[in-house]
């Protein structure tokens, strides 16, 4: 008891000491009153000192965000459902810019745009305040992308390599496997392939059905990926304001980890729905509508968001944010307004095609149109060695296959090219949630691109592809170790690998 008293006295003394050092300046707040409310938008008079993007507080504690500053009134978007708000009610400025308190405690959690937990567990308070809107790092603060971010997907890692700090767009129609690529990439970060740093993954769901989001969270949990992941959710049933803010919240969280020198992967799933939410808000605010009724600053909205993905210089800690924005197209139209905007902002795109998906080629990546503009520098030497001609060969095969449908008489060379292409296509097929190690990818891709599978019946290629790595791992551990180093293979290793592949092929025939 006496111990408690002493502690209490010490505590009071400390408080007293601190109060004495505080210089309390009288609080000057700016007030206004509600003129009209509707569709999550409040128009208020007064608030002459309010700033753009400032958080405001209504009588009763409801929060809002200043979105329009007109001569006579201020337009505010509501951040929560608030049926208690009525005309004439007071609203005051807070002097705060909207932000999130970020700490390590967020890892493994499912939160909404305002950092409220959605997984039923309490969220520990504290952490560092990061503003939702922030200027992207400048040129001097950055360094080139040179470290790979392995997705574990053979087709991506071989043909469209992605580096840490890159922005790679995943684009395609509905149900073509866009989210699957993103989720596989998150799951693959568990492997920490090539001895690379752990990547913190942030999955930002925008405008999706709650059932879908729950399924994705369950998949991540089952794969053990929630140990290094954060899910930011603004579902279809949330207000457009929350949907608009979700990617900014995810980026602010990512920036906290990037500033600590860590690598971050953010998946924005998807930015089409984000654009819809912003269009909805803009139309309600009576901002002038442009093409497809989107506001004039829709490009700036996405460019300022994605520009925050960067690889910082060593001086700044060397952290990075890699982002995978997802865009849903309508009937494969990649030339629509939002897709072309985001294509021009990002450092490459993975284009998924419904036809390929329906014909059983999964991931349904269009090898000809998909590119990675900066990832080549981040690809390992061994992967470069085996996958060099792969993209071109596959693209040529797909166009050749389309022509071959019309004629039956094909010359030997063309037939050979078609057979090789079929085998490459077969090798690049991959089941969902089964990411590959770099060494396993190298073995499969080398076998196909070097023509070692040309004499194997097509129906056996899939079996070969699934078993070959395990075979080599058991029979020749030294070889798998040398493949896992990422260094270019010398002639001896190439011969050894070819011989092991030949031996395994014999067991299949």
């Amino acid at each position, binding site marked *: 008891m006496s111990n408690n008293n002493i502690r209490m006295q010490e505590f009071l003394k400390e*408080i007293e000491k*601190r109060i004495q050092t505080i210089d*309390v300046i009288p609080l*000057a707040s700016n007030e*206004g009153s509600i003129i009209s409310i509707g569709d999550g938008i409040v128009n208020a*008079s007064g608030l*002459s*000192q309010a700033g753009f993007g400032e958080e405001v507080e209504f009588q009763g504690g409801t929060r809002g965000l200043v979105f329009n500053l007109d001569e006579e009134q201020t337009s505010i978007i509501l951040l929560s459902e608030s049926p208690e708000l009525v005309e004439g009610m007071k609203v005051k400025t807070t002097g705060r810019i909207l932000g999130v308190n970020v700490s390590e405690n967020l890892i493994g959690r499912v939160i909404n745009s305002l950092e409220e937990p959605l997984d039923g567990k309490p969220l520990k308070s504290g952490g560092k305040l990061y503003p939702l809107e922030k200027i992207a790092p400048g040129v001097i603060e950055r360094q080139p992308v040179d470290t790979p971010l392995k997705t574990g997907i053979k087709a991506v890692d071989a043909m469209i390599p992605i580096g840490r700090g890159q922005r790679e767009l995943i684009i395609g129609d509905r149900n073509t496997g866009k989210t699957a690529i993103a989720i596989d990439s998150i799951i693959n970060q568990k492997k920490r392939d090539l001895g690379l740093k752990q990547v913190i993954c942030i999955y930002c769901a925008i405008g999706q059905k709650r059932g879908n989001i729950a399924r994705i969270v369950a998949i991540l949990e089952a794969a053990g990926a929630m140990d290094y992941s954060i899910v930011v959710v603004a579902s279809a049933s949330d207000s457009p304001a929350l949907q608009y803010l979700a990617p900014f919240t995810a980026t602010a969280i990512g920036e906290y980890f990037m500033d600590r020198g860590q690598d971050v992967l953010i998946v924005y799933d998807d930015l089409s729905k984000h654009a819809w939410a912003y269009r909805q808000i803009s139309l309600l605010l009576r901002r002038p509508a442009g093409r497809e009724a989107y506001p004039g600053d829709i490009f700036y909205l996405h460019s300022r968001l994605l520009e925050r993905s960067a690889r910082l210089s060593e001086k700044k800690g060397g952290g990075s944010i890699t982002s995978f924005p997802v865009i849903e197209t309508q009937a494969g139209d990649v030339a629509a307004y939002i897709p072309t905007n985001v294509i021009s902002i990002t450092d490459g795109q993975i284009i998924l095609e419904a036809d390929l998906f329906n014909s059983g080629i999964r991931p349904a990546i269009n090898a000809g149109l998909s590119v990675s503009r900066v990832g080549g520098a981040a690809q390992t030497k061994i992967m470069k060695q085996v996958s060099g001609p792969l993209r071109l060969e596959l693209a040529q095969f797909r166009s050749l296959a389309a022509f071959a449908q019309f004629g039956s008489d094909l010359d030997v060379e063309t037939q050979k090219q078609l057979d090789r292409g079929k085998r490459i296509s077969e090798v690049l097929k991959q089941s969902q949630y089964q990411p590959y190690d770099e060494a396993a990818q190298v073995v499969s891709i080398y076998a196909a691109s070097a023509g070692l599978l040309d004499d194997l019946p097509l129906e056996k290629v899939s079996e070969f592809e699934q078993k070959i790595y395990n075979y080599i791992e058991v029979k020749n551990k030294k070889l798998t170790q040398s493949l896992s180093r990422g260094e270019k293979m010398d002639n001896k290793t190439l011969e050894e690998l070819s011989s092991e592949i030949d031996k395994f092929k014999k067991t299949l025939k």
Partner: protein
Amino acid sequence: MTNEKLKKLAKLTVRLKVIDPKLSYFVLRKLPRKNLIFYLRYLKKLLDQDTVRILSATKLNAGLRRIIERKYREKNVIFVKDRVGDGIKVVINDTIIDLTVKGFIDQTMHKLKSEI
């Protein structure tokens, strides 16, 4: 009537400092509801710009009133009784300066919390 004309009308009302019967008849009878709302809102804004309201729980003594009136010599100072607790609140247009005991305690608490 355009907003600009309504603003001119409101400015004229304030300049006259008395409510002209002809003007009030015109405003109340002739203006449509939308224009009337705009006119009244702008009139309130103009009046607020020229007025300082001092809110206090008890009636302030004459000496204190004089000091405050001297401080805001160019403005029309109005003393209003309100439930603000100990101290006063100064309302200038839409800005509120909180000089109440509660305000000081809140500020101190906020600063302490942000330091911890």
